[in-house]
């Protein structure tokens, strides 16, 4: 009997040693299924049927050039790149963006943007190309116009040449159609911004293949963080799927009021309506997928806007962001109010339950995490990042454009 116990014990230790470091968690069947649902990565590249330029090399090239062109703005000084900077994961280090005026929201990173269903923190756009028109026309952001954009594409020799490669009839198009062409080209470029495979993806694939040796390469702290994420933390309820986002909108209990520091006392405080306002906007947007600029009205991408309804609880809801390559995109949240990932984790740990809608969802609860648990969760979130070369590819596309159309 004692011998049996000894042998069994040795076998167990050996098995554990192979499976993972001694302090790594063991995942049950339900958790394993949840972990597998966060992959595989990268997802298959599917063309956006609402955008006839999606995936076309000439359009991607034109889009990369326009993305960095300050002449799309009213004052000739602001480009997309001013707020979506390659070295910051196509986001920026400031909390709230500054265009022609200071905005209420943080510029989201653009890696994996093509995987979204709704665009903007409030989902006020339903396609990547419509979301690329918005900043050009917004008087608070770039303050440009369809007429000025069209003139630029017609009259600037290199841009006119690049546009001709995309569509030989470009020069003869109406202003609005040329604006849409520019936005669709920029969308085609942004579709190529995909975050790389990470340590997490290697672990996930090893788990799928029951490759215990490969699984041990994933640090024990990240594994414990993953167990929290898919277990007690319930993070995957909203941050679901390979991109860690369900593409929908929730209230995570951030303060309602927009922090306008330095305002004189007595200034009325402002509230960001979030998804409530976004639904109202997307329904009346002439560039939405129900409008005439959608290149394929039968595309399944046009189903959600037909059925989306504005509900009282949408007030103060914001889009669930994906969690890949967050390392470069600090600060976090729609208002940039969390300086680093540790601050985000602390927010979920100390949630103010009274602040969350009483009639709302019953998902988020203060997690009251210990220091070690917070460190584990951080190790997991950091394992969703990896080195990526989109900045270099952006420069290469721009150089290629300069060669093709000097």
């Amino acid at each position, binding site marked *: 009997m004692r011998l049996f116990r000894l042998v069994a014990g040795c076998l167990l230790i050996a098995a554990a040693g192979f499976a993972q470091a001694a302090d790594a968690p063991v995942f049950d069947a339900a958790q394993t*299924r*949840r972990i597998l*649902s966060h992959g595989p990565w990268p997802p298959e590249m599917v063309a956006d049927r609402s955008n006839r330029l999606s995936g076309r090399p000439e359009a991607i090239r034109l889009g990369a050039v326009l993305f960095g062109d300050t002449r799309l703005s009213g004052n000739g000084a602001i480009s997309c790149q001013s707020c979506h900077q390659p070295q910051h994961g196509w986001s920026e280090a400031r909390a709230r963006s500054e265009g022609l005026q200071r905005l209420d929201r943080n510029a989201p990173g653009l890696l994996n943007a093509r995987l979204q269903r709704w665009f903007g923190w409030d989902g006020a756009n339903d396609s990547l190309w419509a979301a690329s028109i918005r900043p050009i026309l917004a008087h608070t952001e770039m303050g440009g116009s369809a007429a000025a954009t069209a003139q630029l594409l017609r009259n600037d020799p290199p841009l006119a040449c690049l546009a001709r490669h995309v569509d030989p009839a470009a020069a003869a198009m109406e202003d609005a159609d040329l604006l849409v062409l520019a936005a669709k080209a920029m969308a085609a470029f942004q579709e190529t911004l995909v975050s790389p495979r990470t340590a997490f993806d290697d672990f996930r694939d090893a788990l799928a293949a029951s490759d215990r040796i490969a699984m041990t390469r994933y640090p024990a702290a990240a594994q414990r963080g993953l167990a929290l994420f898919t277990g007690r933390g319930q993070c*995957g*309820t*909203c941050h*679901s*799927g390979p991109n860690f986002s*369900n*593409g*929908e*909108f929730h209230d995570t209990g951030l303060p309602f009021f927009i922090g306008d520091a330095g305002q004189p006392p007595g200034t009325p405080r402002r509230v960001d309506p979030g998804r409530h306002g976004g639904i109202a906007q997307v329904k009346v947007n002439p560039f939405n997928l129900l409008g005439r600029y959608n290149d394929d009205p039968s595309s*399944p991408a046009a*189903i*959600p806007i*037909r*059925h*989306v*309804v504005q*509900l009282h*609880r949408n007030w103060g809801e914001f889009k669930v962001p994906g969690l890949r390559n967050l390392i470069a995109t600090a600060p976090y949240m729609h208002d940039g109010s969390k300086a680093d990932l540790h601050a985000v984790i602390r927010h979920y740990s100390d949630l103010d339950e009274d602040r969350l809608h009483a009639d*709302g*969802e*019953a*998902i988020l609860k203060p997690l009251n995490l210990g220091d070690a648990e917070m460190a584990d969760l951080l190790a997991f979130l950091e394992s969703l990042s990896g080195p990526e070369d989109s900045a270099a590819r952006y420069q290469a596309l721009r150089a290629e454009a300069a060669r093709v159309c000097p």
Partner: protein
Amino acid sequence: MRAVALSLALLLAPASVLACADLPVQARLVEGSHFRLVVLPDPMPIPLNAPFALDIKLCDARMAELPRLSAVDAWMPAHRHGMNYMPKLAKLDWGHYRAEGLLLHMPGEWEFVFDFAGPDKPERLSFRFDAQ
């Protein structure tokens, strides 16, 4: 006049009872008071986080007693919230409907709810589904 129309309808119907044969294994069946509800998702199985439709049939009901389906919805009992989308319901034929534009945006248990109006009294049928 109404009586004539009614008897004509009964005559034209292949039988006075709507039978549903050859149901795929993935069909969900729910027993109603005097009919069976048969629900077929499209695509199958129900996807998580992507739009889908439901093909809905009322089987084994006598034509004259056929209730009208008035609403289809889905919600998560544990989270106390429904979908962010309003399905559109269309009647295709006697006892045959299609609901478009449903989307389950979270993993976990959802309850599908089907509301019927008359002829005698309203009736609500439901089934639960674990979305993963």
